[in-house]
C-alpha cells in the first residue's frame, strides 16, 4: 500500500469520508448510518467494504461498525481539516479577503469549529439598516454579548430598548466607536450604562477587530476585509460550535478591555461640553 492509496480511499468518495467522520462520534450500526448519511444500504455497503479492506474500519459480531486503531488515528486528524474545508467551501473568496490579523492564532486555526455558516450579502436597499436576521434574533435572546467595532447610529437606542425589555447585555466598544457614541448620543449611552443588566467595557488597543454578536442560540460576525473596510458581508451561524468559538473570541477581547463606569462617562461628557 502507498500513502496515495489511503488518501484515495478516504477522499475519492464523499460517502466514505462522511462515514468515517460519523464513526468518530461513536460505534454505530447500519440503520443509524443510513439515517445519518441519508444513503441506501446498497450505495454505502460497497464503500464500507473498501474501508474495511484497508483496515480503517471493522464490524463486530453484532454488526456494529467502529474505527480500528489506525482508522481512529487518521480520522482524528481528518476531522479538524474536514471542518475547516466545510466552513471555507464555496465561500473561499469571502474568507480569503477577511482580515484575520487581530484574531488570536489558535482561534483562526480552529475556524472549522464554526460549522455551518451563512454569508449574508449586502442588500442594497437596506444596507444601512440593522440587518434583519440580526435584529430579530437579538429580540429573541435573553443574554446578549456584543463586540462593536464600527459605529451604527441605531445601536445605542436599540441596546436601550433591549435592556428595558429585561435582556442582559455585555457590550465591548472599540475606542473609535466609543468616541462616536459619546459625540452623537451622550444621553443615550449615559442612560444605557445606568441599567443594572448592562455591562459596558472599552477596548482601546485596536480599532480593526471584528464585530461580534452572540445571543442565546446564534452568533453574528462582521469581519473587516483586508483593506480594513467593512463591505457589509456578514456571517450568521446557529451551531453550538460557533457560539463556543465566538464566546472564546469575545472573552479574549473582554480580558483586554477595561470596564466603563457611569462616573467615567459623565466626566468625559461634562468635560467635553
Amino acid at each position, binding site marked *: 500500500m502507498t*500513502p496515495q492509496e489511503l488518501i484515495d480511499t478516504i477522499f475519492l468518495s464523499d460517502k466514505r469520508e462522511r462515514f468515517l467522520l460519523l464513526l468518530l462520534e461513536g460505534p454505530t450500526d447500519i440503520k443509524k448510518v443510513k439515517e445519518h448519511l441519508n444513503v441506501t444500504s446498497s450505495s454505502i455497503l460497497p464503500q464500507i467494504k473498501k474501508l474495511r479492506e484497508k*483496515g480503517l474500519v471493522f464490524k463486530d459480531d453484532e454488526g456494529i461498525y467502529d474505527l480500528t*486503531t489506525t482508522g481512529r*488515528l487518521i480520522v*482524528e486528524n481528518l476531522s479538524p*481539516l474536514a471542518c475547516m474545508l466545510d466552513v471555507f467551501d464555496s465561500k473561499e473568496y469571502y474568507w480569503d479577503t477577511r482580515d484575520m490579523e487581530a484574531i488570536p492564532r489558535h482561534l483562526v486555526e480552529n475556524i472549522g469549529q464554526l460549522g455551518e455558516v451563512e454569508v449574508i450579502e449586502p442588500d442594497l436597499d437596506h444596507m444601512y439598516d440593522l440587518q434583519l436576521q440580526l435584529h430579530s434574533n437579538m429580540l429573541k435572546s435573553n443574554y446578549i454579548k456584543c463586540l462593536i467595532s464600527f459605529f451604527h447610529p441605531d445601536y445605542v437606542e436599540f441596546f436601550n430598548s433591549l435592556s428595558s425589555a429585561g435582556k442582559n447585555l455585555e457590550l465591548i466598544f472599540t475606542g473609535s466607536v466609543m468616541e462616536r457614541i459619546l459625540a452623537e448620543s451622550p444621553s443615550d449611552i449615559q442612560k444605557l450604562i445606568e441599567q443594572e443588566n448592562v455591562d459596558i467595557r472599552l477596548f482601546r488597543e485596536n480599532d480593526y477587530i471584528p464585530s461580534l454578536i452572540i445571543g442565546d442560540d446564534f452568533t453574528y460576525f462582521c469581519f473587516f476585509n483586508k483593506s480594513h473596510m467593512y463591505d457589509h458581508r456578514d456571517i450568521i451561524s446557529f451551531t453550538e460550535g460557533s457560539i463556543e468559538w465566538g464566546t472564546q473570541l469575545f472573552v479574549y477581547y473582554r480580558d483586554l478591555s477595561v470596564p466603563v463606569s457611569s462616573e467615567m462617562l459623565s466626566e468625559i461628557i461634562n468635560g467635553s461640553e
Partner: protein
Amino acid sequence: MGSSLSDTVWLSDKRLNLLLLLMEGPRNIDQIKTSLNVTSRGMMPQIKKLKEKYLIVEEGDQYCLSTIGELIVEKMLPLLNTIEMVNNDNAYLEEHDLSELPPKLFRRLYELGNYLLIEPDLNHTFEIPREFTENLLKSKNIKSIISFYRPEYPDIYCELMEHAESMSLIMTPPVFERMKQSCNSKMIRLIRAPHIHAYIFPENSRPPGLDTSERFTYISFLDKNGRYDHKDIMSFDESALKWGDELFDYYCSLCEKIEI
C-alpha cells in the same frame, strides 16, 4: 457546477504536491517544475484550479499560498503525517495498546516523526536494547515511566542517578515492589537523592514504558493483551521529545510522590 474544496485539494497529486511545496515558501514556475518534476503544460491547469479556489495567489512571477490556503495546508500536514505512519507501520499500530494515551497525544502520535521501530532479534530478546542504554547514559534530564520490571533496572537507574542532572521516575505499584525486593538499599538511595523525583502510579492500569530526555524519546507500548513484545519506538525528533515530555507530565499528574 464547481467541485468541492476537498476535491480540489486531494484529487490531484500535482495540486497536492504544489500546495505542500508552497508551504515552504513562494516559488516561481521554474522552481515548481524542477521541484515537482513536471512540465508547464501539465502544471498550468492545476495552478489555475487552485487559483480559482483562492488557495494560491500569483505575485509577480511567484506563486504562494493564500491566507486560507496556508490555514488548510497546516491542517493537512498532521493528517498526511498520520497517513504515512499508518501506511508504514500498520501492523505495529494495530497490535499495540494505544488506548491508554490521553486523546490529545493519541491524535498527535505522528509527532514521533522519523522514529525507529526497534525489534530485537531472537538471541537478544532478554537484553535491554543497546540504543536505549547508550542514549539514556548520555542524557542529562531524564523522565521515565517504568511500566514493567527488568532485572537490570535497579542498576541502570542507579547508574543514571550518578550521570543525570535530574531524573523523574514513575513506577507502577508492582514494579516498585519488585525494585524494592531485589535491591532495597539502592532504591532508598535513589528515592532520597535530591535530584531524583519518584512517583507511584495510582491504580493497576498500565501506562506504556517511557524514557524521554533532551536527547531522545523511547517508548514501549504494551500489546493489546497487556503484554510486552519487545518492540519499541525510538525517536530523536524535536517533536517527539516534546510529545514524550507531555506524555510523562500527563501520567505524572495522576501519580503520588514516593517519600521515604
